[in-house]
């Protein structure tokens, strides 16, 4: 029987190999992300008087970077499940006694690589629009903590979506709806304090709002809505709860598909 560490090494190798093998797709993904973001940024820019652009630029830039974490997890893990299923790879992995979960988690390598490259290029676009000061970070360690918590949440969420898509057909656009709502209402785009008062309770209930507040504190020193210590505790609880839920749901889904087979075959 194959040892766990060998299995994990094989999965990591698989995803790096795929990155290299499909390098044009990888570059295409980075370019596509940048272009879509630029369309929306230019659209939103038209609403801001030129005099306020310098003040809003860092918030917009980090909002976009955090959205990219969410979006890439959803698409490169949750969305890729479609490819994984339609190629018959679930059954193939199960037959070799390998759970599809680590294979799907390994897709975070692809997602994070695209996020990193796209974020660097978006930052470059922003320096062109608002000057180099947009890149100044107040506390890099806090930013890192916030991003790690956010990544844990988004990867867990993507796994929950993957588990769901083993049993039901989720159209991709529905995932985008959830992403957009999280971006605007979930406090990724702007600080919770800047949202209209009626929307704030919704934002507080969306897990991503809390690490986003931590990241903004690290970037600009903006005081988090519930205070830094509270936001750190809440974010950690949300991250652990989501990771645990993903684990439980996937375990049950695997048990189900071992008995009944994969349902979602075809275009989703």
């Amino acid at each position, binding site marked *: 029987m194959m040892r766990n560490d060998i299995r994990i090494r094989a999965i990591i190798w698989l995803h790096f190999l795929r990155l290299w093998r*499909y390098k044009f797709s990888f570059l295409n993904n980075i370019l596509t992300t940048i272009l879509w973001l630029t*369309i929306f940024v230019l659209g939103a820019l038209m*609403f801001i008087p030129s005099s306020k652009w310098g003040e809003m630029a860092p918030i917009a830039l980090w909002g976009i970077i955090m959205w990219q974490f969410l979006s890439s997890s959803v698409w490169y893990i949750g969305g890729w499940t479609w*490819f994984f299923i339609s190629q018959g790879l679930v059954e193939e992995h199960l037959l070799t006694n390998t759970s599809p979960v680590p294979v799907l988690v390994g897709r975070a390598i692809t997602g994070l690589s695209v996020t990193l490259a796209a974020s660097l290029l978006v930052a470059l676009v922003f320096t062109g629009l608002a000057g180099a000061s947009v890149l100044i970070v107040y506390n890099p360690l806090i930013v890192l903590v916030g991003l790690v918590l956010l990544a844990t949440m988004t990867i867990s969420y993507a796994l929950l979506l993957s588990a769901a898509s083993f049993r039901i057909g989720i159209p991709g*656009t529905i995932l985008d709806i959830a992403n957009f709502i999280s*971006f*605007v209402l979930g406090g990724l785009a*702007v600080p919770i304090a800047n*949202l209209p008062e009626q929307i704030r309770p919704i934002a507080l209930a969306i897990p991503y709002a809390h690490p986003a507040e931590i990241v903004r504190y690290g970037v600009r020193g903006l005081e988090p809505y519930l205070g830094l210590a509270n936001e750190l505790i809440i974010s950690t609880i949300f991250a652990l709860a989501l990771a645990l839920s993903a684990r439980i749901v996937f375990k049950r889904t695997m048990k189900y598909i071992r008995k009944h087979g994969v349902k979602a075959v*075809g275009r989703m």
Partner: protein
Amino acid sequence: MPSTSIDIIRASVFSTYAWLKNNKWLFFSMLIWPYLMTFLILALGMVYGSLETYRERLGISNPVLYILASSGIVMSSLMIVDVVATSALYHRWLGTLPYLLLTPTKTYKVLILEPVPSAILSSTMSMLAILPGAVFFEGLLGAGKLFLILLVVYLGMLPLIGLSVIIASLTLVLREETNIASFLTPLILLLSGVFYPIQVLPTILQGMSRIFPTLYVVQAAKLTATYTIPEIKALLGLISALIILTLIYNGTASLALGTSERMVKKSGVI
């Protein structure tokens, strides 16, 4: 005996119908998408700034209707390019491409005609979805304007199909996992100035935008959102540009797909 064009289109209509019937969420999402995009731009813009600033910068009378119409155009363009460019790729994923190549019907004929019903349906759906919004803002005149934009979208679809076929040919030859030219859709939309005036782009990009059909479709939408009754002369100018692009792109596409079919038959498709 090779299948006729009517046979291919009829089969594709049935396939599209069955696909949507079995995936009602997808049908629903096609209707909701333009509103979602409008919501995103408006919500983001209004949290960062104000609608008044947007109205002044773009010089349009009804910014919400304009954003709604632009979102409809974005969605229809996206779906046309996606459906046409990825149909060959999808056949390869499913393992049906070798069978297509072995049938007496020319492969390029199948790859061009098969996505047409789906492309027409998705662009119609994207535009019809915003009908309630248009009627809400401008009554029957709004519905009339939307119908006009839909006609321009249909016309804009012809060169877009040609462009998508060129992308499909490239994807087949390069044997990539996904549509490696999918960046072209946001690039085309970026250069068409969907949510902003193209004057904000560098001069070289403004020049490049003239070769993409969506620029003219977006300009038609802007005309309808700017004036109560759009200028016929200006609209005719845009339509002429679309006809010229149709001839250029579809001519190139027929050559590109024939060449990639020969290359794929020579080297294998998997």
